[in-house]
């Protein structure tokens, strides 16, 4: 199985990207995830299945409920997983540099 190719296919779909963003901050049940979409519940279930299959989501049984959470480790299978984080800091630091190059002491 080519994990990377599968991961890219997984994130090619906007609904699946939305699901990843939802569970990035907290574990959610399939029902809670589905309630965020107008799409039919079985469609959301299918998306969850695909995300779980390529191991971007992990399932955890809690009583009768199954919770989904982000498998950040496998997100790293995507080559540029860290790049947006680096880019965010690089942008901030570039801004800092520009501002301070033009800095004029108040006194």
């Amino acid at each position: 199985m080519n994990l990377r190719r599968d991961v890219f296919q997984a994130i090619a779909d906007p609904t699946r990207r939305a699901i990843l963003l939802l569970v990035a901050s907290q574990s959610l049940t399939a029902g809670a995830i589905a309630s965020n979409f107008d799409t039919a519940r079985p469609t959301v279930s299918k998306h969850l299945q695909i995300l779980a299959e390529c191991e971007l989501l992990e399932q955890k049984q809690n009583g009768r409920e199954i919770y989904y959470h982000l498998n950040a480790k496998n997100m790293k299978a995507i080559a540029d997983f860290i790049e947006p984080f680096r880019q965010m800091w690089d942008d901030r630091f570039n801004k800092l540099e520009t501002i301070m190059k033009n800095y004029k002491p108040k006194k």
Partner: protein
Amino acid sequence: MELKTKITAEDGKQELVITREFDLPLELLFKAYVEADIVEQWMGTKVLKLESKKHGSYQFETTDAKGNKHRFNGAIHEFSLNQKITRTFEMENTPYGVQLEFYEFEQLTDDTSRLRMHVIYESAAKRDQVLALPFTQGINMAHNRIQDIVNKLK
């Protein structure tokens, strides 16, 4: 070409290191972390409070495209002028926990300096979640719908 900003985040560790070299004298780099009006400009945030001293604390507030306010705060544990700041950082109302941050400022030449930012998270999983944030947000940039979903969660 070598990247100016580097991230080191080893697998399974609860820490990361960000380094950056600046075309700025050390004093100016340090000042950018100390003065509220400068922090506001480069961090793109409102500074509600910034006490740059030992036992001081800070609180920032950003407003997103939808007008939602997000607050960040922390306590300053160590403050050595032009050398080092040790502080905590927390995104309020999120599950990412409190992180411990060590900022080391170093002079390279009269006109250049380096920042080393060492960040320790509560767990490796939390670090990975924070690392994943700009990624998950980035791949959704084109989809305004996502913002609506996040707003519904609040």
